[in-house]
């Protein structure tokens, strides 16, 4: 469940307000968005991908918002990085290897 908006990292671009498929955030003039409807969160992590300053943290538990602020601050951004988005796009180690998926299934079946 969406847990934290780090005000100090947020540029108030409101991208997360737009892209969140659950319409969880409310924009505020000149400020970071508020998590207005946490119970509507889908725990889909998509907002994090679109936040270029890693100012959001989604806890993987669907029923829990409480999270250590330090852990959130340390981990947020890992999804965007490992997905190779934005400034990570040219890092060869982070290249999209999704095409391996069918090979993994085949190996699991022993073929």
């Amino acid at each position, binding site marked *: 469940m969406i847990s934290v908006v780090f005000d100090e990292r947020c540029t108030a671009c409101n991208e997360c*307000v*737009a*892209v*969140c*498929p*659950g*319409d969880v955030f409310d924009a505020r003039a000149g400020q970071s968005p508020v998590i207005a*409807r946490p119970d509507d969160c*889908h*725990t*889909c*992590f*998509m907002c994090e*991908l*679109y936040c270029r300053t890693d100012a959001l943290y989604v*806890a*993987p*538990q*669907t*029923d*829990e918002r409480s999270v250590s602020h330090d*852990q959130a601050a340390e*981990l947020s951004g*890992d*999804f965007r990085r*490992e*997905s*190779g988005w934005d400034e990570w796009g040219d890092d060869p*180690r*982070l*290249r*999209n*290897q*999704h*095409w*391996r*998926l*069918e090979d*993994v*299934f085949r*190996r*699991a*079946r022993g073929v």
Partner: protein
Amino acid sequence: MSGAEILSARADVLVLGGGLAGCWAALRAAVLGASVIVAEKGYCGTSGVAATAGPGHWWVPPEKGLRENAVSRRLAAAQGLGDPVWMMRIIERTYETLPSISSHYRYEPDDNGVIRWHALRGPEYLRALRQKVVAAGVRILDHAPAAGLLKDSAGIVTGAHGVLRQGTASEWRVRAGAVVLATGGCAFGSALLGAANNTGDGHLMAAEAGAGMSGMEFSSVFTVAPARTTMTRTMIYSFAHYYDSDGYRIVPPAGPHDNAFLAGALARGPVLCDLSAVPEDIQRQLPQISPNVVVTFRRMGIDPFRQRFPVTLTGEGTIRGVGGIRVTGPDSGCGVPGLFVAGDVASREQVTGPVSGGGAVNSAWALGSGCIAAESAVAFAGINRVLPEPAESRLAERADRAHVAREADLAGLREVIASEMLSPEKQYFRTAGNLLKTEVRLAECHRTLATLRSETTRRGQQKFRELESMLAVARWCTASALARENSLGMHRRTDTSSEEFTPFHITSCGLDMVRTRRVPVEARA
């Protein structure tokens, strides 16, 4: 919400749902010269079950006999319910169309330098689709859940209306020459990744307009996920071993099987998953194959390859099930003039039979049926046709209903639906007795809901409509499961023995009174 500000617009083609099927439909219609509007409940590009996953498409090159072989294998799996013509059409469409995504999707070559055109990671795929849709001149209404279809006095669908969750206007109303319905399957509010918006709204809208359902008994798929999470990605579990809390291995049955063997164990207590058999190279590659899987484990403090962790079974409803709106012809129509269906909202029996099409066929169906529905919609609409006035155009106010539904009322009803439709035991091991109990409970919910009207807030209206939709879908699924008395594919009846039969579909319809019918599969040459 009388007096509320309404966003009004018109288009040749209106697409409801901006997921995989809706995006491909919008693109196809725009390429054919139509003016197109997409209305999406969430955000076109992040919403829907493909955006968070990584769909591999059914991909068969046009080489000697390959397609014929692929179709005949799938036909065998479809156990009499498949249609080779539809199968071939979606294979052809996918092969012709999918590579065009490379204008906005960055394909990475595999270890041999080969591009695998059919395998796309969800977030990047849907982002690319949105960019293509925008570049094609399509207008997107985000945060615009559709609530109902508009019809003219002759019963022809002439648009739709719904709620706007953001912005000053609080409702939208689009008049269109034809509508493509692509609102996805229905997962009954389960934690299935990406499925929260897929509550069966399109099924209900279509039913109200006169369409019927088919194959709703094929709605009993459950997927393993780490407990309390949404992470229903399946790949890594192909190496899984499962244990009970005493450390005894829960052994899967020999041969092909689904997750039913875990259902009983979960009912008795926690089930722990062991992924230590995942080869080391795959462990290392996983963050770049499925980043969201790794992120989930890391944030829970679990090292999945060295630590056992508790798992759950998450219900998929019709999503990686099969049933949906009955497709009545090669144009992807559904028997309602001006309305065409695409993707998971439609029944996929013709391309998958009674077994799940997840893994390849469903995406090819979403793309293929999206393109075909769009072409039919453009042909039906004619470009810039003068549209007759719709007969009705606002959400029914239901002012006659006694009580306003509070969130607590709705939550209670949602819980009943979940306890019936998302119970692995009830859905994996169906009996007439249990199904009848489910039917009675859901009918009670329907009667309760019929005394309620929604709050007049935007969100109140959306949530009310979602509940009505999930309930209708749940009732069609249950009635259809009762009507098919023998096991077939994912539909497992434990109270009857399997027997030879002449293939038939179970169709379902009706809201106050749910009805089912056996429809024999037309004999094919």
